[in-house]
């Protein structure tokens, strides 16, 4: 028998607005109405401002470790814009911009990083899940959430975000495999920012694209310029259409770059060249959009100055609210462990002790039992 070809495949890459200001009319025309574009830009600028404010809060000792989102705003924002508001957004921790677009209060994100679980409680009404700290584990939850919608006959889908490093985790592969084989409408969105703390992307995935990992699971996949809001929205609409009409998953790789350190506890100068960072700064998604809107005549320097001033004021107001939020009470440590607290937890909560003599003073020595 002759050797035949078992599979030939290719992966499309979408770029609509590049860093030099070139705009692909064919793909981009009418994709995002101007009125929406202005609101999207405003969200990106506010998100970037919050990122800078959060960084300073950490540096001045007013907040714990914080992972900056700088440079990656277009991915989650474009996704949240293209999705319906009741589709699940299952994020890790560099999706602040999409969460803000969805309506999750910025307070919730800041409170989370200020060490306060109450921040996470604000996500549910917006069909968003809490910020996921353990890497690459939340895609399985997205698969379960979309599965539940399918089971109930609802049209809801889920979109989950993760980085290039997360695609090395076993749970990533299990999530892709479950969604693909059980026909569950999940959009797997990899924010490929090239660095997992200090480990470069080629150690996570030596294939030419991360997107092609989807092929192994029989998913359609696409690579988009993740610093191009238009390309992200275009790719997401394709993915959403596929997920809703077929009930099956889709894989998107948004190629972007982490302009900041991994977190405030990291110093990226130890492992990457400044020249690389500078090259990516020139591809900043916000600058790109601003130049496009200015060229189009719907934006100006004066408007930009005013927006940044307003964004700063709004961020400072958020900080003030978060810093003045009532301190959580110790009983909160116990109260959410179970719906109905076992008696030993009630005892620990009421006494503030774990040693038995502290919990039950009747056990303390008395004349009758002292030996």
């Amino acid at each position, binding site marked *: 028998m002759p050797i035949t070809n078992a599979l030939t495949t290719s992966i499309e890459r979408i770029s609509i607005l590049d860093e030099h200001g070139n705009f692909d009319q064919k793909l981009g025309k009418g994709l995002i109405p101007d009125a929406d574009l202005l609101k999207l830009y405003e969200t990106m600028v506010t998100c970037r401002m919050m990122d800078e404010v959060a960084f300073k809060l950490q540096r001045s000792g007013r907040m714990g470790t914080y992972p900056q989102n700088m440079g990656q705003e277009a991915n989650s924002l474009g996704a949240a814009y293209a999705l319906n508001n009741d589709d699940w957004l299952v994020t890790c921790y560099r999706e602040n911009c999409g969460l803000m677009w969805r309506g999750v209060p910025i307070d919730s994100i800041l409170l989370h990083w200020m060490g306060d679980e109450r921040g996470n409680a604000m996500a549910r009404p917006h069909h968003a899940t809490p910020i996921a700290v353990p890497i690459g584990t939340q895609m*399985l939850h997205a698969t*379960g959430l979309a599965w539940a919608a399918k089971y109930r006959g609802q049209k809801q889908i889920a979109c989950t975000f993760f980085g290039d490093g997360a695609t090395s985790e076993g749970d990533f592969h*299990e999530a892709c495999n479950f969604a693909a084989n059980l026909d569950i409408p999940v959009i797997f969105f990899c924010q490929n920012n090239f660095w997992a703390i200090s480990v470069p992307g080629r150690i996570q995935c030596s294939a030419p694209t991360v997107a092609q990992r989807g092929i192994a699971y029989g998913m359609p996949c696409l690579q988009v310029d993740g610093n191009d809001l238009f390309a992200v929205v275009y790719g997401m609409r394709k993915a959403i259409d596929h997920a809703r009409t077929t009930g099956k998953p889709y894989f998107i790789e948004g190629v972007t770059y982490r302009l900041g350190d991994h977190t405030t506890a990291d110093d990226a100068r130890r492992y990457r060249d400044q020249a690389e960072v500078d090259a990516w700064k020139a591809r900043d998604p916000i600058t790109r959009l601003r130049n496009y809107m200015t060229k189009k005549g719907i934006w100006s320097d004066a408007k930009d100055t005013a927006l940044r001033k307003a964004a700063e004021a709004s961020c400072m107001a958020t900080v003030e609210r978060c810093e003045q939020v009532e301190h959580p009470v110790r009983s909160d440590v116990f109260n959410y462990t*179970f719906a109905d607290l076992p008696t030993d937890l009630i005892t620990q909560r009421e006494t503030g002790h774990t040693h038995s003599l502290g919990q039950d003073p009747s056990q303390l020595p008395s004349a009758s039992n002292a030996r």
Partner: protein
Amino acid sequence: MATLTLVQAINLALIQEMEKDDRVILLGEDVGSNGGVFRVTEGLQKRFGTNRVVDTPLAESGIIGTSIGLAMAGLRPVPEIQFEGFLGPAYDQLCSHAARMRTRTRGTFTVPMTVRVPVGGGIHAPELHSDSPEAFYTHQPGLKVVMPSGPYDAKGLLISALRDPDPVIFFEPKRIYRAIREEVPEDEYTIPLGKARVVCEGTDLTVVSWGASVIQCMQAIEACGRSIELIDLRTIYPMDMQTVEQSVSKTGRCVIVHEAPRTCGVGSEVATQIMEKCFLHLEAPVQRVTGFDTIMPYYKLELEYLPDAARIQRGIEDCLAY
């Protein structure tokens, strides 16, 4: 009243809850057309359809992780992990997410999920098919851990677990899946989680155990010919220390029996709490008759490893003689 095995009692409980509540769905490896490798879910896919009894890919973390998502959306998933030795790959999802979700989100997301897991040795199975890892999950705040010792309890405890608003690990001792039969009412009944059972009353010594070991304890107690009280914890967390405390305060002596290794086993917690709560009533050091602090051997030696009636009897007699 029907006389059922533990397998049949669990199957009946699943059927009754699935008929009552369409949020209950089963998922796992081989749970569908095969009815589970122990046939616990036999006939359920035929009865409830492939949407409610789902054969999944072979991936334990995937089974638990997707169950967490299903539960966060308001369903009541019942994932099956085929053997306790394969619960390890799902440890991260259980402890990093299922156990923490209510706390992490201040109650806005919860995980009402019952993880069914065959557990323990004594069935001549291959490696990693005979372990007793209940202590790992008992130590993790946010999880409930249940292990019945017979068909009647299994049905009542499982229904409570399925209705519980929080994640429950429901260990099913495979050694007694078919070894004993009991009368199990067709009618619905529940046994509350966190409530131990006094199997037999006595005045000289208290034996505390759970799961398949309870049967070995009964044999040992019979052979001893003394007045011994046997407590089956039934739920390992929350632990019913009140029942244990009352008993040991009365008898002054206690032997704890479990299949798992001794060091940091659940028996360590029971013994410590007895020391804390019954200090002045104790007539002898609390004794533990357990698996050895070794790797569970292959099956040629498994009966040397597992605490049998003779070893338990020796523990009881040594404690009584102190």
